[in-house]
């Protein structure tokens, strides 16, 4: 038990110091700028690759993944508008009665 307590005491001290140091380090522009650049660069490359694949797919006149996403989103928007209308009709009926 004593050994564990001692270990925990040392661990807590180490953890607090390390976390504090790493938090400061992580906030540094020296870390954040390259991390942002790497992420943005990788995402631009992925978007370009997706666009190229979609372009090739489109040559055959087939809908792309983005086309399907747009259609499904439009259906969801229509569902919301129908619900809006149902609410308005219910409110009008309630007003009449």
């Amino acid at each position: 038990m004593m050994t564990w307590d001692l270990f925990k005491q040392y661990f807590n001290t180490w953890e607090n110091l390390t976390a504090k140091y790493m938090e400061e380090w992580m906030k540094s522009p020296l870390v954040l700028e390259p991390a942002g650049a790497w992420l943005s660069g990788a995402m631009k490359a992925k978007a370009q690759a997706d666009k190229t694949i979609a372009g090739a797919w489109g040559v055959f006149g087939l809908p792309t993944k983005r086309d399907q996403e747009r259609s499904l989103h439009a259906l969801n928007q229509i569902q919301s508008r129908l619900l809006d209308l149902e609410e308005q009709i219910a409110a009008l009926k309630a007003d009449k009665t």
Partner: protein
Amino acid sequence: MLDRLVALAQRFSRPMPAVGQTPAREAHRENKWRLLHYVARPEGRAFRAPIVLIPSLINRHYVLDLMPGKSFVEWLVARGHDVYCIDWGTPTDEDRFLTFDDITDKYIGRALRVACRESGAPKAHVLGYCLGGTLAAIHAAVRPEHVGTLTLLATPVGFHDGGMLSRWTRTRSFDVRAVVDGLGNVPWQLMQSAFHMLRPTMTLSKATTMLDKAWDDEFLDGFFALETWGNDNVSFPGACYERYISELYRDDALVKGTFTLSGEPARLENLTCPLLAVTFEHDAIVPWQSAAVVMELARSTDKHRLHLTGGHVGAVVSKKAASGLWPAIATFWEDRDEACAARG
């Protein structure tokens, strides 16, 4: 050490605690989200105005209904409240086009109308947790019709707080449009790794705590339930994320008063309903300074700030919360229940 490992291994051989167990029915469903209505206690409701809980978009709703005995929802229902909670569900690829206005205006508006219609009260007590609070505050500032009181639990309002996330999203090299173009919905793994970077030693610290409490079954059940929740996140709808980062994080538009909802100005000075802002001293995800700003901005005459020790999640689900935080929030609602239910 070995005996601790053996005790932990034995605990792992048993099933993990079940989460989100308070009985509920689905009051409304639209796209991926649904509004849950918790079943009232057998002796019925003691209060008139319903409570609508709005969790963060990227976390599961059941943090507020973690497990029997550690559930804010269960505790509220037992006290006689009529409780609703939004479950945002899991966005799929087409939800990359879902906008901030869709979620904050349309969806939250519908949830409040359904709760008010079903309960028969004109207004509801609205509680938003974390990002859910930001959405709730914006909604209440523009569409106050069904908001009786507003409770903001660890809610970011000022985004220029000097924290790592705030600084990272404001670096010149971070291109939010490229991220959304490349990924569509922003995967929860990306956001989770950003949260891990807030305290990189957290995983080791958790492992040590687990070993330390290897024989404490009650503690371990709560710990595993929280870990289940912490690793069960959802992706952020792309178009909504882009606006969240560019206008809230980068421009600090809520503090500056330049944010809009469906084309209408969303100024927090328009908040006039009773307001309770809860901030936590050791919150690494939403620094208390970021959450406390609403007190200066809101014009409510009945506004209160509750500042407690503890972190972003622990302080909301811990044993201590059941005797401190939860009664404080419930009392705030109960004292204003009649006024809230009567206002037209």
